[in-house]
């Protein structure tokens, strides 16, 4: 049985968006296909990878595990809609710490980090690890990501990656191992 489309209203970036879609549909699908929010990555559709992490009323959720009906009337945040100043600082920290490689996990990590940093601008390492624990990365080995998030709050290791344009011909310090 397929659920019939119903009218659903979600709040995105301070505006109410009304759409018609099946209430049993995964929120990740609706955000990507109906609303064009392609920062929401779909890795596993099973809550195992966290790539689709979005904030619902400020708390991190796997969008792939959320039926659209449960988003009705709620405030949904993706990397496209969060405060630009904080996401820019996070992007800069990820860049400087080499925290993004293939990139599919990056929006999920950033959304998990944004929930944390709003509540605790200078988190310690165990707090960061717990907040990011629901997102998998198969490239970086996590240390760089945790360091990047801590750096946003002014803590953690110094940046290890040279600024763009300065890397050619120089040896770059190895971060892991």
């Amino acid at each position: 049985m397929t659920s019939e489309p119903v009218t659903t209203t979600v709040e995105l970036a301070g505006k109410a968006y009304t759409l018609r879609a099946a209430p049993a549909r995964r929120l990740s699908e609706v955000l990507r296909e109906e609303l064009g929010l392609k920062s929401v990555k779909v890795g596993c559709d099973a809550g195992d990878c966290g790539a689709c992490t979005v904030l619902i009323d400020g708390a991190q959720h796997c969008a792939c595990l959320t039926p659209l009906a449960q988003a009705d009337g709620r405030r949904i945040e993706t990397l496209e809609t969060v405060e630009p100043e904080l996401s820019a600082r996070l992007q800069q920290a990820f860049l400087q710490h080499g925290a993004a490689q293939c990139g599919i996990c990056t929006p999920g990590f950033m959304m998990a980090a944004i929930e944390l940093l709003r509540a605790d601008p200078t988190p310690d390492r165990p707090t960061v690890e717990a907040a990011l624990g629901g997102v998998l990365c198969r490239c970086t080995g996590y240390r760089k990501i945790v360091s990047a998030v801590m750096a946003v709050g002014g803590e953690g290791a110094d940046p290890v990656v040279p600024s763009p344009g300065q890397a050619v011909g120089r040896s770059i310090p190895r971060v892991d191992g």
Partner: protein
Amino acid sequence: MPDVTGAYLRPETLDAALDVLASGDVTVAAGCTDLFPATERRELPGRVLDITGIQELSGISVEEGGLRLGAATSWTAILRADLPPALRALQLAAREVGAMQIQNRGTLAGNLCNASPAADGVPPLLVVDAEVELRSISGTRRLPLADFLTGPRRTARRSDELLTAIFIPQTALAGNSYFLKLGARSYLVISIAMTAARMVIEDGIVTDAALAVGACGPVATRLPEVERALVGHPLRADAITDAAVARTLSPIDDVRADAGYRSRSAAELLRRTVKALVTPSERAA
């Protein structure tokens, strides 16, 4: 009679939900952390009864004779609640269910009704003698959790019943508790074994002991033989022997661990669990 037709129903009252359940085949949905992984489709299949719109199913309240935990209470809500030390094990388990994304969605009753042998919520609820409340249009009944869970993915819930609450009797809210989970990593992992313990210690003597192990048999289980060995003595973790623990468990070999490893791990986890729940002055060894 409310409308019970339609493929996706999200009533706001319990009575309406019970009418839907009485009307025939329907899947009960809350956090969907087990339902969505069971399908590769873009939407939940079949007829769905979404109970997350029913306010009275969420939250924790004191009632006569004990504590009532609403069925749709999330793990995050459990983690943040002010609960007695006897439920510390449940709060420690809440922190280890999946990760924050899962804890914000997953519910207590979902964990029980999904009836995975590795459900993290079960051992902490077994050590507080939890009962489940099942309601249908024909009435309400209460079952001990140990009787509700009948096998892997099997429960005593009839198809017209809704698990509406978990009840903890006051007598089982005495003492302190602790929980440990063994997995391959800290988050997003299915348990190899997990243990919960609740102890009442008076004047240095264990007067009540409740131990439970999960993921080491078709359903999580209490360990009455080991519990009896602890009561009446100063707490000694080494009274929890590998042999006595192994006699109670029936673990399987699977992709996460073999049976022998599970059994030995469960015994060691139990020893660490009871050591962790007492203060140094209460500890004999």
